[in-house]
């Protein structure tokens, strides 16, 4: 089977869907000849022309707002926001508009819109480029939130997103874009939303993560194994919908859990994971669920990001503390 990294997997998903469905179009900053700042849309304008692959003006709110309108006209827009941090400029068009449009039109209209955006630390980006703001959108019901961690999921979840009749925010871990290839089939396939994936089995503790933090947890599991701690790693894949069932079943098995994410700790989605476990399986917990996130300060200068982001060391320490309690 062909090997692809995440950039190639995304490019492959877009190509397949644009080929299969004339209505699918791509719009955003520099998605045309440049192929996007990370080249995820490379080659699309050559294949599908400048009517379906559109370099828009530098105005995020209009990229999202126009996508809503394009969807009402019967197109299937896949919009790119150059970095997730710049969804802030479009914030009012995402939750309150895209996410509400079905409701506010009493079901007359819906928005088959996908918003793709890279994010995450670890690649020494400028300000705002690394901000992990996914949890802000969980408080904007109506938007599904997809956080792939590997090439196979990236393609399958993106195709699922494009085909979903409701709006999807698709967050891409830029640190992992080219970090490794995996088997990614040619041709369309989907990975369903709301199904967490146990990417590593383990008996003593469950590490819960999404996006690039999954890779960190896998490294932590390796490190822990050396110390005789068997850690499972659960990749949530989508935050909305949340796979409450798998989450609870899995954590109940190990009795211990550490959630890891790149967003600041306070009110990050790790809190939701912890609160859910509290409500659902309190009596199955052998120790309190611990969270490891970034600190509660804005993303610092790139030269400091290694100290700001959850590190292997902090994850391992948190697990050990969990094991001791």
């Amino acid at each position: 089977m062909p090997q692809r990294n995440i950039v190639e997997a995304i490019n492959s998903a877009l190509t397949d869907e644009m080929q299969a469905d004339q209505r699918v179009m791509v719009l955003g900053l520099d998605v045309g000849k440049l192929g996007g700042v990370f080249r995820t849309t490379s080659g699309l304008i050559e294949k599908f022309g400048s009517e379906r692959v559109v370099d828009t003006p530098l105005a995020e709110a209009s990229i999202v707002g126009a996508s809503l309108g394009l969807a009402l006209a019967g197109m299937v827009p896949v919009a790119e926001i150059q970095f997730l941090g710049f969804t802030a400029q479009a914030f009012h068009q995402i939750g309150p508009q895209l996410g509400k449009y079905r409701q506010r039109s009493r079901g007359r209209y819906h928005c088959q819109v996908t918003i793709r955006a890279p994010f995450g630390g670890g690649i020494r980006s400028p300000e705002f480029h690394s901000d992990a703001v996914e949890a802000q959108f969980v408080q904007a019901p109506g938007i599904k939130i997809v956080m792939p961690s590997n090439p196979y999921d990236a393609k399958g979840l993106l195709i699922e997103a494009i085909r979903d009749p409701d709006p999807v925010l698709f967050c891409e871990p830029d640190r992992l874009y080219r970090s490794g290839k995996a088997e990614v089939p040619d041709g369309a396939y989907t990975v369903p939303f709301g199904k967490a994936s146990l990417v590593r089995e383990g008996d003593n503790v469950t590490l819960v993560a999404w996006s690039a933090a999954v890779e960190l947890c896998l490294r932590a599991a390796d490190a822990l194994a050396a110390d005789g701690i068997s850690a499972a790693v659960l990749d949530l894949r989508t935050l909305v919908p949340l796979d409450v069932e798998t989450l609870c079943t899995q954590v109940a098995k190990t009795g211990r859990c550490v959630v890891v994410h790149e967003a600041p700790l306070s009110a990050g989605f790790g809190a939701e994971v912890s609160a859910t476990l509290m409500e659902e399986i309190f009596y199955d917990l052998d120790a309190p669920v611990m969270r490891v996130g970034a600190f509660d300060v804005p993303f610092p200068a790139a030269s400091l990001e290694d100290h700001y982001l959850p590190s292997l060391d902090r994850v391992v320490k948190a697990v050990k503390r969990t094991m001791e309690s």
Partner: protein
Amino acid sequence: MSARAVVSKNRPVAMQRQVLQPDGKLVDGAQPMEEEFLLEALRWMMKSRLYDHRVIGLQRQGQFGVYSPGMGQEASIVGSAMAVDPARDWMVPQYRELMASVHHGLPLEVISSQYLGKIGPARIPEGVKVLPTQVAIAAQLPQATGLAWGLKLRGEDSVVIAYIGDGGSSEGDFHEGLNLAGVTKAPIVFFLSNNQWAISTSRRVQTATRSFALRAAGYGFDGVEVDGNDVMAVYAATRAAVDKARKGGGPSLVEATTYRMSFHNTTDNPSRYQDPKDYEEAKTRDPIERVQKYLASIGLWDGKKDEAWTEELREENDRALKLAAEAQPPNPDDVFANVYQDPPLRIVRQRSELAGGQR
């Protein structure tokens, strides 16, 4: 007819800024609207004002939701709506130009039922090319541009008309929506109802520009100012813009200069901020009276006709309001209606929790 190109030195458009004067006389040399058509326009304008009066009364009795009347702006509301074709064109409202949506095919009982908190009955029927009213000021503009752009991509013969206020013109979404329309040459008409007020904020402190229409040049298309209390002029200006868009000429901005002859909405108290003189002055430019005067001057209008129409229109409106009042009220479960096509499990559980089932 006084022709005046307001903006766009590069691509001037001859515009009828005013056709019918406040005194009911035609501007020298201006071409009036065809009589049948003008009577139709008058009918809609009267309907709009009568509806406003009626529902404000109901609201005061607690029988209608918070409501923003269109009083004083009927020429803009009706003249613009008559310039688009409900069969193929799309209307993107803000919230004040309610009767424009009705003209465009949205049944009055449907939109009325929205103010009574109805859900299902307030749904815009299939085939009616109107978007929901927009409360988040100016958010509809990038959406309207996307819609027009999409219709063009799909090869449809449609034009979009999108409403915005003088207040809304200050939002970033105004800029982004109009600029994108210019770039994509989208078939769209931005209709700016400059009614001089954004709640209590006067147009004078909303912006320092002498003309909103002037902004169109900054997006590479035409802008025109028109007397928004003159239904003939509003129709002509909007129609020219619609025709141009349909022919592939891209977007236009029409600024209709009018006056909000009532409160912002039923919770507002303009006496705190409005000089009563401004209101009195505006009354002399009433959009309905001037048409009635003109029609009277050519023998097509008199007190009897006025009474008869008023009676008829009141009944028409009341029938719609009755239907709206009788329509199915929401049930608690409607909280969960129309959020996702396939609701996530968590919501399914919350739904059953609300229904009294176990979490």
